[in-house]
């Protein structure tokens, strides 16, 4: 990794001196109280979503016939009420958060890998290859891509979580490809890349050892912004009945259920909706702050 612009990829602590890229970014980020708070909320929700269902001792699909469609009651068996089958809404929502988070993370990873590779190859090769690859991105960009996801998920094994995150990830890579390509174009003209090329570094090694480390800031920032997008796609599909299938809960199908029952039982809509909104809001706040901190071009005000 010697020879990269920002120095090596280092954790916030332990960088040489005080000038490390990640160290500086961390210092910029630390000033943003709101982003730190939002990050804390995400971690808290994730922890509760992972541990909560186990601690409560209630399964996400166990029915309580004595408590059908019961409103929330704090000191009680079901804190946030139950649905019309008597399933505990707190447990189901936490479980749904977990599924939505996992799909969001995996789909972001898929889209990030495709987008980064596509953008790097296009930007580094330049010329006709670049033009052709970016034209393809333009065409895909102009399509309502959720259509494609809908077609993919309905046609191949509805409800399969793997199909779901691959399909979502496979259409979400366009923005990151554009950004990565732009930065690669600039990097490819820098002197250290030129020098590496002169001493005979092969294209593959060049991209991996010299371009990727310099893109890492951008990649991290856009990954954080991609996660809420992917969670949104997943919930959208599940809301339409095309994503996660019953009895498995996801925030999308819980909201769909809740919307059907809201006239008599508003909490069934409000509980999962609140979790989804808080999660999306926190991710986008953290993502914006990270982009400001890691992308000096944009410049935090």
């Amino acid at each position, binding site marked *: 990794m010697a020879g990269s612009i920002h120095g090596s990829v280092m954790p916030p602590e332990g960088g040489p001196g005080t000038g490390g890229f990640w160290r500086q970014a961390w210092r910029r980020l630390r000033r943003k109280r709101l982003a730190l708070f939002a990050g804390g909320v995400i971690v808290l929700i994730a922890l509760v979503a992972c541990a909560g269902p186990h601690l409560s001792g209630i399964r996400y699909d166990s029915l309580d016939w004595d408590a059908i469609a019961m409103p929330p009651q704090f000191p009680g068996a079901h804190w946030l009420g139950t649905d019309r089958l008597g399933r505990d809404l707190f447990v189901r929502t936490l479980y749904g958060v977990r599924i939505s988070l996992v799909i969001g993370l995996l789909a972001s990873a898929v889209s990030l890998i495709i987008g980064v590779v596509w953008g790097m190859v296009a930007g580094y090769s330049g010329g006709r290859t670049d033009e052709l690859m970016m034209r393809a991105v333009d065409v895909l960009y*102009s399509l*309502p891509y*959720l259509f494609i996801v809908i077609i*993919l998920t*309905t046609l191949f094994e509805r409800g399969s979580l793997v199909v779901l995150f691959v399909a979502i990830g496979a259409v979400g890579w366009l923005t990151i490809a554009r950004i990565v390509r732009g930065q690669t174009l600039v990097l490819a003209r820098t002197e250290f890349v030129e020098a590496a090329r002169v001493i005979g570094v092969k294209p593959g090694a060049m991209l991996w050892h010299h371009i990727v480390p310099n893109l890492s800031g951008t990649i991290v920032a856009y990954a954080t912004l991609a996660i809420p997008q992917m969670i949104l796609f997943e919930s959208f599909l599940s809301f*339409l009945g095309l994503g996660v299938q019953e009895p498995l809960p996801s925030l999308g199908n819980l909201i769909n259920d*809740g919307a059907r029952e809201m006239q008599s039982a508003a909490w069934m*809509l409000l509980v999962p909706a609140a979790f989804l909104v808080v999660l999306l809001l926190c991710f986008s706040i953290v993502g914006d702050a990270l982009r400001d901190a890691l992308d000096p071009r944009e410049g935090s005000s």
Partner: protein
Amino acid sequence: MLAYAARRLAAIPPTLFIIVTLAFVVVRVAPGGPFDAEQSLPPQVKANLERAYGLDQPLVVQYVRYLRAIVHGDFGPSLKYRDLSVGALIAQGLPVSLTLGLAALIVALAVGVPLGTWAALRRGRAVDHGIMGLAVLGVVLPSFVTGPLLVLVFGLGLRWLPVAGWQDGNPYYLVLPVITLSLPLAAYIARLIRSSLLEVLQSDFIRAARARGLGRRRVIWRHALPPALLPVVSYLGPATAFVVTGSLVVETIFGLPGTGRFLVEGAINRDYTLVMGMVIVYGLITLTCNLAADLVYGWLDPRVGHAS
């Protein structure tokens, strides 16, 4: 400019051809068929049905046949709604979807542009923070959350507005769907306008205009706002794609008889012709809107050289 427009227009049919081919392959490669759901169907009847719709032919033959029909504007018969052609189905739903989408775009512009401008002019003050806070919320809130919440408050709670239905385009019934669909758009547009206006206000030609002694009002309206609107114009392309997909959810929530349900239903039922018809119609709509947005952009911004 005219040559550029012609070239872009000429690029639409090949793009559409690629989309149609891709969709055809994806739809047909997937397992299952349109007549699988009806389990009681004897094999002979199923074979007859498939022959009647030409599904017994090799895929290549079907593909060529389909392309030939499409060129003549014939989308073929629906495989599920047996008595209706795909063309008739889409023609029935499209006015509803278009009305909804267009109304949402107009409302989003009418709300987003003034709010974004106001926020930019009051940068750092309470108004700015308030509007931008709302905008963040608007962008983040998905329509399948805002829709039911609006129904809960204004339909079921306050009883001001109808909960669902179309009623031949009675505007009263359109209020909640249009608000639901336009909210994220308006929020995004407000953010775009704010940041682009702030950038323009710092540029040299604005300083020059101020130095010439022009009034603040004139500087903003005549000099700063027009160039600041450009990002919004180029956003209108992606915005149509957003409206198209967004209307899917909004039509579901509010029970509107638009075309949105055809895509989902068609894909689930393996109604090949219906899915293909939807892909073509919506592909054409988004391609046209993208082209229109780009052309308007080029017309407004002389720096974009379309001459070559």
